[in-house]
């Protein structure tokens, strides 16, 4: 099965091992260490790590389309944000009448802008199952429609990049509009609980962190499954010689559409897990610069490796956290410098450093491996 194949791969095993190890250790340190111990992991840190993992999943999604399919999406933030909004709408509905105006149905921002009733597209979001399906469907359908149009017209290269950017930019402006019914610039915030668990408790936070870790693991395995399958090789073929791929009988646009939609859904899941952990979703997640930054994480970690994307996302965001704290006035120098230095000195990103060593075992290609297996 294409999904179990990655589990036999060394690199995936290592990745999952490290990830689950980290999840277990963090949980253990959080639960069993005394608060004043140096080893204690506070719930602040747990949530922070949870956020990084969301970003890592988003980066993996971007690497899937960029690294393996050659689609430099400058609009993945849109899928991330849509997933986030779907989750945010659910969380908003969970507030019930605990909002400041005490309206049992309408979120606060609708009350003070005189909305009389919930817009139709908010219907159903009070039910968790519906919301969670929408987390996948909202970005998935957008990607399907957008991708269908773009790939059918054979939009490629920078043209594709720029229209993905136009897409997220347009959505950002649209979501800014208060008329849209998504809370305008303020977005959705002040969430109370999820699936009946109070978001403010440490246990819920830990749960979300673990859920994110598992989502990342699943996302990683799915992506790995795709890229090690024959479809993955076809993707690479599309990336390097799109026209040639058609002549050997592959419908390039469908390959692109399939992978793009899968990637968008993963991004949506990342967004959905992000929202309860950071406590707000607002249109700035649609900002084109955010999407570009995600691409930068991937490039920094090492394109077309998947685990590189994870490393890049974790590293950059950790660096941001640290730098904004210890050198609030100069952290941009450090971050900018990091980007420049990595590009110039590590052409294959950070993952390039690691793969140099393990290259020897990698020469057995997936196809060849499988044949012998």
């Amino acid at each position: 099965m294409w999904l179990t194949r990655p589990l036999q791969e060394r690199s995936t095993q290592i990745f999952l091992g490290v990830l689950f190890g980290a999840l277990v250790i963090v949980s253990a340190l959080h639960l069993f260490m005394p608060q004043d111990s140096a080893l204690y992991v506070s719930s602040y840190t747990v949530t922070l790590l949870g956020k990084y993992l969301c970003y890592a999943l988003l980066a993996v999604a971007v690497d899937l389309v960029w690294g393996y399919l050659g689609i430099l999406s400058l609009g993945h933030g849109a899928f991330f944000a849509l997933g986030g909004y779907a989750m945010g709408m659910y969380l908003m509905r969970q507030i019930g009448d605990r909002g400041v105006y005490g309206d049992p149905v309408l979120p606060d921002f609708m009350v003070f802008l005189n909305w009389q009733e919930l817009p139709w597209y908010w219907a159903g979001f009070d039910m968790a199952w519906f919301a969670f399906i929408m987390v996948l469907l909202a970005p998935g359908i957008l990607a399907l429609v957008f991708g269908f149009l773009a790939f059918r017209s054979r939009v490629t290269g920078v043209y594709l990049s720029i229209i993905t950017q136009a897409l997220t930019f347009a959505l950002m402006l649209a979501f800014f509009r208060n008329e849209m019914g998504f809370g305008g610039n303020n977005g959705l915030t002040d969430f109370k609980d999820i699936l009946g668990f109070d978001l403010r408790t440490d246990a819920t936070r830990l749960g979300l962190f673990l859920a994110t870790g598992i989502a990342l693991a699943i996302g990683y395995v799915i992506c790995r499954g795709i890229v090690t399958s024959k479809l993955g090789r076809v993707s690479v073929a599309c990336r390097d010689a799109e026209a040639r791929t058609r002549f050997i009988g592959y419908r390039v646009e469908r390959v692109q559409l399939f992978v793009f939609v899968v990637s968008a859904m993963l991004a949506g899941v990342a967004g959905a897990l992000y929202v309860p952990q950071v406590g707000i979703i607002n249109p700035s997640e649609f900002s084109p610069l955010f999407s570009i930054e995600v691409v930068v994480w991937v490039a920094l970690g090492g394109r077309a490796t998947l685990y590189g994307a994870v490393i890049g996302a974790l590293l950059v965001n950790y660096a941001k956290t640290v730098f904004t704290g210890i050198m609030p006035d100069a952290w941009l120098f450090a971050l900018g410098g990091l980007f420049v230095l990595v590009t110039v000195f590590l052409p294959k990103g950070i993952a390039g450093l690691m793969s140099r060593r393990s290259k020897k075992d990698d020469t057995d290609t997936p196809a060849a491996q499988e044949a012998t297996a």
Partner: protein
Amino acid sequence: MGIIRSLSQLLLVCCLLWPALASAQVDDSQAQQLLTALAESSFKEKKSVVNQIAGSGDDRARTWLEAYGDNKLGRIESSGDFIIVLKNRGRNWTVQSALSGENLGEISRRDIDTIRVNNALRNELEGILSVIDLKSPDEDNRLTAARALKGSVDDTLAERVPDFIAAEESDAVQAALTEALAIYQVEEQGDVSAVATLSGSLNSEARAALQQAQNSDDPALAAAAAKAMESIEQKLKMNRAAETLYFGLSLGSVLVLAAIGLAITFGVMGVINMAHGELIMLGAYTTWGMQQLLPGQPGLALILSIPAGFLVAALAGIAIERTVIQHLKGRPLETLLATFGVSLILQQLVRTVISPLNRTVITPDWMSGSVMINEGLSLTLNRMYVIGFALVVFAGLMLIMRKTRLGLEVRAVTQNRAMARSMGIKATKVDILTFGLGSGVAGLAGVALSQITNVGPNLGQSYIIDSFMVVVFGGVGNLWGTLLAGLSLGTINQLLEPWAGAVLAKILVLVLIILFIQKRPRGLFPQKGRAAEG
């Protein structure tokens, strides 16, 4: 219209008496008294004091009133002496005595009470000063004054206006005065015969008068007014269309300017230059810097900024090329990562070295205000210059890329670097020159943008997305495409804006770009043929 009424009385006084009293002078104690009254009365009372001062005939009165209007008439707290403030920035102000004109040097801001003025009083003052201009020897001044009279003629003034008309030699001034009178006649007297004068006038006061007349009980007047209004509406429609087109072109030329440098560095060289916006920013800061270096000469500074802005940005661009981009040959996507880093550094550099706050860039007089095409249509000057500048920059670039070897060589180098070098093309030099050129042009854009928008650390970020959009929409590698894309996106945006609002218009333009790319997957001017299809 209370202000106007008292103003017109004053006007009569002034017109008739001021020349005769010009040499008169009230004594200092009287002056002190008048000024004290000004300082200590409420805003309502101040009006009559102003009129008293104006009517006093003292030849210092004009100075006092002008200073008062500028918020520069004050009193030293301790001594109660009246002063005129010469420099009012910072904590210490330079002042001179209001009565003797003697320079008193710097005085702490704490010790000065400025005499407060407000818009209403400033209006009054301007009225006084401008009506005097009706007698000015300079025709332009008279014309401005006459135009200002439209809508502010009242009973007293109406009697005088025909005299002015008779005495006036300039046709334009005469026409303006006639119209001013006609407005009064239609509005206040319901005079049907005056309607004809107003027919076709684009002046808003005239329109207001006609509108009112349209609803009048007098059917003849109402009908005449309605007819006149019709012709006005017709003209206004034309004007509005012309105005929208102008707005569109001007927005478009801003987009073109912002994007055209990128059309070189990205479109031709293939470097995804995320620091392009910051290079624009450097150009804008150069303008600010120049104006700091040449205080009091904003115009000269602006002109010098054109070469300076180009140089600064070009050198910065070359530095980026040498330190970063040259190591990324054959990895165009990685340039995105590195230049993103560079853009963060440049932004923060400006925040740290200069300031996180916006800087003031002064618009020189010859670029301020607007050219009046007719009373319903004025075109703003700064934007007109920007349109012209964009076209000049475009033409210059076009010349360089078409007529010099650089254009050929850079294309050869980007299409096949190894082969180009084998043909003896000095690829490194070409890289430096081209990147420098693209960056320099970004700097020029910054110089122009400093006249339109904020000069601050975020300047670049607000243009980078649009710039890429324009270059790609036009078709990568095609300068004409960039020009047409910029202008058309600008125009479309402005056509949509009145109808959809600013936000929705922008969204619609983006959606349009997305849909357009479906139809033409390689932009407006695509690279065609076998090679492009790969």
